[in-house]
């Protein structure tokens, strides 16, 4: 492990501990230790740490890592530093299905909302892919972005129409817009966590191939990459990661956009170095955002989607300014 990676891992570990400590009522690190290794069934703090805080910490970790990596893959796939997973229509598709389900019946169970959001994300991306990509067609990824933007707009229009007709979906909509890593119990989200973990591990063999794809489709093909297949694998990875993230925690912006930039800046252009770092940074950043969302205006919480936007927008503007300075 390079010193940088160790630093990132250490930072992440600290963020995890702080996340377990933080809340309307702060626990000490000792209390966290106690709760993790020798919990007593009657201690309220132990219970709080082991249930609510543990869940939201785990969700934030997986969602953050998933979004960081999904954004990185998306930026490599499209060779566009401004690309983010949402461009595939993932978020819009998830929202549409959730709103549809909420319109159909009142009490929408959490697992159905999660599963529906995941299915909606996947279906939307499938439609985008079917419209944009043909084997061996040049500039496919550019069309991917255009088709994604168009379909997203269409799906949002449907969602809004449904909400105007029937306001049952309004709560689902609000949850989705604000995002939350604490809304659902672990029993409902663990399958999505497993999906995220599996995809993160499955990315490993692609890391070297993405290095070539980053140099352009023609270069990659010339060096013996099956470009279309790699693009398909990349999109599947992005859809599963971003779909699982949106199904677990709603619309969380900026993580997928900014984290890859930070990771590349810290670890250089080799995917074998920066993409794992993007997972760590994404997880750490979302944890920090969640801790801030819990502690900024107690006893209320700032929605985490708002928090990531508050943190992300300035960072993003700084990045844009830096890049503009270099090229212009």
């Amino acid at each position: 492990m390079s010193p940088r990676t160790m630093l990132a891992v250490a930072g992440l570990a600290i963020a995890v501990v702080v996340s377990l400590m933080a809340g309307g009522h702060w626990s000490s690190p000792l209390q966290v230790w106690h709760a993790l290794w020798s919990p007593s069934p009657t201690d309220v703090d132990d219970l709080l740490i082991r249930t609510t805080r543990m869940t939201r910490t785990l969700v934030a970790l997986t969602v953050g890592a998933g979004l960081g990596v999904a954004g990185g893959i998306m930026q490599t796939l499209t060779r566009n530093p401004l690309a983010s997973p949402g461009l595939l229509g993932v978020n819009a598709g998830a929202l549409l299905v959730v709103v549809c389900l909420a319109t159909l019946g009142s009490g929408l169970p959490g697992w159905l909302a999660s599963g529906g959001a995941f299915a909606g994300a996947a279906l939307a991306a499938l439609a985008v892919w079917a419209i944009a990509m043909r084997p061996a067609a040049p500039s496919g990824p550019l069309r991917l972005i255009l088709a994604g933007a168009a379909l997203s707009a269409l799906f949002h229009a449907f969602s809004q129409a449904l909400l105007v007709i029937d306001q049952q979906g309004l709560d689902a909509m609000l949850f989705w817009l604000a995002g939350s890593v604490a809304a659902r119990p672990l029993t409902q989200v663990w399958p999505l966590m497993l999906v995220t973990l599996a995809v993160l591990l499955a990315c490993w063999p692609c890391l070297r191939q993405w290095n070539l794809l980053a140099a352009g489709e023609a270069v990659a093909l010339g060096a013996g990459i099956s470009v279309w297949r790699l693009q398909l694998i990349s999109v599947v990875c992005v859809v599963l990661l971003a779909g699982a993230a949106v199904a677990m925690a709603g619309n969380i912006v900026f993580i997928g956009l900014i984290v890859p930039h930070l990771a590349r800046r810290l670890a250089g252009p080799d995917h074998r170095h920066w993409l794992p770092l993007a997972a760590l940074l994404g997880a750490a950043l979302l944890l920090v955002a969640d801790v801030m969302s819990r502690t900024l205006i107690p006893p209320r919480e700032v929605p985490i989607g708002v928090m990531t936007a508050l943190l992300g927008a300035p960072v993003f503007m700084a990045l844009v300014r830096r890049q503009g300075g270099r090229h212009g």
Partner: protein
Amino acid sequence: MATLSANRLTLGYQRQAILRELSLELPEGRISVLVGSNGCGKSTLLKALARLLTPWQGQVALEGEDIRQRPTKAVARTLSLLPQHPVAPEGISVRQLVGLGRHPHQSWLAQWSEGDERAVEQALLRTGLDDLSEQRVETLSGGQRQRAWIAMAVAQDTPLMLLDEPTSFLDLTHQMEVLELLVSLNRDAGKTIVMVLHDLNLACRYADHIVAIREGRVHAQGRPQAVITRERVKEIFQLECRVIEDPFFHTPLCIPFGKGAA
């Protein structure tokens, strides 16, 4: 050694055919240059030869076998490609870029080997980039950058190299530099080189074999002296010119007159 040929190749974009039943055999161990006016199909032909485009009809044969039937990684061990205007990933160093060329020689199990290291070193030496190897590609001059891309293709260690306009956007000095490098790769390393060039006089100087493309077909091919004549240039480029012998290199030298004065 490896042979590359096109057999009754027809292909194009959308519904418009660019190449029409084009057949061509490229001489082994030589420098072949594709020339022709804009839109004649020379770049399309090079892309088809490099399997970037799928033919509508006909086929490209590498070592006598349909190039699309062979695993793309196996093809990449025989044939390397420098596309038009490649853009390096931000922040990548020359050595990293050149190392990308080793991909077809690696697998999951055999990742980075000593052979790869040696091939990269050699490619850097051969292209004169050994001193610049730790520099970022985006900080290099246009000529150096093009050399870095050629070094990546050299590291791929293939008997065949295809290059799509390797000298475009370079000033004359750097055009010469790139072409001299390609000649040395051909003479010293025995590589078969196929490229598209716009400058007819440089093409005549450096090519062993010129292929003139007109309206999606091979209009003429052969040694520069045989192909580049006043009549042919008029047919290929719709351009009035005189062709004289280059007093120093004894290759054809085309002096364009334009439409009016002739």
